[in-house]
Structures are given as C-alpha cells and as structure tokens.
C-alpha cells in the first residue's frame, strides 16, 4: 500500500474543486491545496480576514504585512479581487455563500461531527478562531487529514471525544489512504489507494464502512 504524501493529498482535494467555486482553505495543511488548483479554472479563494480573490505568496522582499491570510502569512490579491470587513467575511461563511471549505481535524465522526479546535487537555489554552463558523457555514465542508494519529489511532471515529467544533457539518474526508463520505447515514468509502481493501480500512478505523466507490468506467 502506497500512502499519499501531503502534496498528493492536497492535489487530490484540489481535483474536486470546480470552476467558479468560492472556497475557504483552513490554516495548515488545507492551505497547500491552493498550490494544486488548475490554473485554467477561475476559483475564488476567500480568507476570513477580509479578502476574496486571494493569490499566491509574494516573491521574497515584496511582502506587505497589511495583505495577509488567516494564518497571518503574506499573500497577494488577484486582479479582480477585493477587500471587506470581518462581519461581511463571516456572513459569507455563515449564510452559505462559500461553496467549499477545507479544514484540518483532530477527529471526524461517521456522522460528520467535527473536532478540530481544542484537545480539552487540562492547562491547554483554547483558541477557536474562525473554525466553528467555517465548519457549519459553507455549503460543503471537506476535511483533509492523515487517517491515523502518530499513535496509530483512527481519526475517523464513531463519536468524537475531543470537544466538538460543529455537529454534522462535514460531508467528505480526504485522507492519505482513502476518501470517505460521512453524514446522517454513516461513512462510506469513495476511493482507496492501490493495494488497500475495504476490510483493511474497517480494521484500521474500527468503524462501519459501506462501499460507495463509483463503478469502473
């Protein structure tokens, strides 16, 4: 079995983002999806801090620290892009104007519950940022994560034990070994890397999985 590396995962997510989509990419791994969006598609990247039509990082030396993304990295604005204030920015999410949001996760449940903001450990200082607004607001919320923790535990679970970010908000989970759909009727496997069988995935995750793969063309 060949696991996808993080670049391949980003490229896989990018493949499912259609022309014309308004998209918010979360901090961390999801941000790298931008590097794999096909240049021949007009895709509008939104950043929570008030820009639409976000472009790539500037060349070194050209950074403008009043033009940053949610991770506070310097970015650029595409021709045709625009700026707006925070209430408008979160209205774009909350009211479902954003088509797709891609987030990282600590855990996702088979019903689409998401935990990605707080470990709940004693002494941990919580920070939530825009995670809760993003998770429940976009028309579709994708999660991108490695399937297993470093300790080998599945991050796709029956029920999240970390504090929740949102209930039933995730529709799809892109991992290093498979793509899952999640929701009210549980989890299904849409795609697997070569050399992996659904029984292996059931063993790895410990959750019920149905086969949702498209028939070979």
């Amino acid at each position, binding site marked *: 079995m060949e696991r996808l590396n993080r670049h391949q995962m980003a490229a896989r997510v990018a493949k499912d983002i259609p022309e014309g989509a308004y998209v918010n990419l979360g901090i961390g791994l999801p941000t790298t999806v931008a590097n794999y969006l096909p240049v021949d598609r007009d895709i509008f990247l939104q*950043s*929570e*801090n*008030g*820009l639409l039509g976000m472009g790539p990082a500037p060349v070194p*030396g*050209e*950074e*403008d*620290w*009043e*033009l*940053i993304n949610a991770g*506070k990295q310097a970015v650029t*604005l595409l021709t045709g892009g625009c*700026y*707006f*204030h*925070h*209430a408008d*920015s*979160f209205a774009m*999410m*909350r009211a479902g104007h954003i088509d797709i949001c891609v987030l990282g996760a600590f855990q996702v449940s088979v019903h689409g519950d998401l935990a990605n903001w*707080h470990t709940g450990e004693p*002494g941990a*200082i*919580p*920070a*939530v*940022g*825009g*995670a*809760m*607004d993003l998770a*429940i*607001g976009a028309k579709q919320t994708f999660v991108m994560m490695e399937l297993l923790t470093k300790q080998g535990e599945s991050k796709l679970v029956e029920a999240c034990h970390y*504090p*929740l*970010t*949102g*209930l039933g908000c995730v529709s799809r989970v892109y991992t290093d070994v498979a793509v899952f759909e999640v929701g009210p009727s549980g989890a299904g496997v849409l795609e697997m890397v070569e050399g992996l069988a659904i029984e292996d995935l059931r063993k790895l995750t410990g959750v019920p999985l149905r086969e949702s793969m498209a028939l070979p063309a």
Partner: protein
Amino acid sequence: MIDKSVVSAEAAVADIKNGSAVMIGGFGTAGMPDQLIEALIAQGAGDLTIINNNAGNGETGVAALIKAGKVKKIICSFPRQADSHHFDAAYRAGQIELELVPQGNLAARIQAAGAGLGAIFTPTGFGTLLAEGKETREIDGRQYVLEYPIHADFALIKAQRGDRWGNLVYRKTARNFGPIMAMAAKTTIAQVARIVPLGDLDPEAVVTPGIFVQRVIETAPVPLHAVA
C-alpha cells in the same frame, strides 16, 4: 467648524478610565492601532476589558498592554499563538479573564451592538462547549444559539486615510474589525496615515462614515513593506 482631528495619540486617549471596555482593531498586527495602544499604556488606565481578535503578538500592541498588567479581561477568538507569550503567562497565572468567542460570533456581536440590536441567533457554536448554558432555538429546522451584543466605551482602530469629519478608508486586510468596531463603541478613535481635506475621499468609496468616528489622529505614513 467640526474638526475631529486631535493633535496627538496621548490627547486622543486621555479620557479612557480604569475599568473601561476598549475594542482594539486588528487581525494579528494588520490593522492594529499601535500608536494609540502605546499612548494608552503610557496614560495608565487599568482593569480594562479588551475586545480584539487575538490576545497580543510579540512585544507590541495588545501584547504590551497585557505585559503592562492593564488588562483584566479579554474577549477574543484566537488567543493562543506562537508569539502570544505575554497573554499565556498572564492567563496561566490567573491574572486575566478570557471570554473565548468564535470569530464570526465576535464580529456579529460587535455588529449587533453597532446596529442597535438586542441580541442575535447564530448557528455557530451550537452543540459545542462555547454554547454551554446558552439559550438555543430551532428556526426553520436549524439550531441557533442566542448571543448578546458586545458594546464598548472606546474603539481604537487603524485606517489609511481620514478627514476632519471622521470619514475613513482602510488599507487591504488591515480593514478587518475596524468598520464594525467603529459602530459599536461610544467613542471611536482612529489612527490614520494621513488626514486629508474634506472632499478628497471619494464619497462612493468611504468605508466608515464619519458619524461613527469621534477622533482622528495622524501618524507616520504606512510603510508599504513594513515588517510585522
């Protein structure tokens, strides 16, 4: 003749009192009104409730205000960051109270205050720790949490240009919370790179109408490639 320009940051913040609620614009350091914050620290008011997206970055701005021991409570969405050490230390020592608010709810609650609304129902946070103990309601099949407006005595914000009537335009993503905080506070103080004559700001492009701004101070021009 109405002239809202004030000669210095010191004069602009002189009447902020112990125990005031102060909104401070900015997302990280973009849009943070550094000169007004420095003046506030020097002025000495303490026991402040600060409303900001973060809880300070590095050594300047909100971080310096916390380091100086002037903040009793902070209402924010994203306190913990790689460079939030002054907040982290004060929080762990039990010297600062934290009200953690999802970022969109923070914006909506500030906007509600500025718009004169008594409360809002928001879907964000439903079923999570941050909605515990709060009233909820199902509306058209969706679950919402009741959240109240956040008012403030003062808002300190940063804009690019302003005029003597208080009209403001901003620069790039330094706009962030500025326009809504200006509406939510009793007294809004804007630091701008340049105060221009009336009429220089295109009326079609004014972002914050002067009615929401009480004082304007002019600072050094914004360096195009300033290092954060």
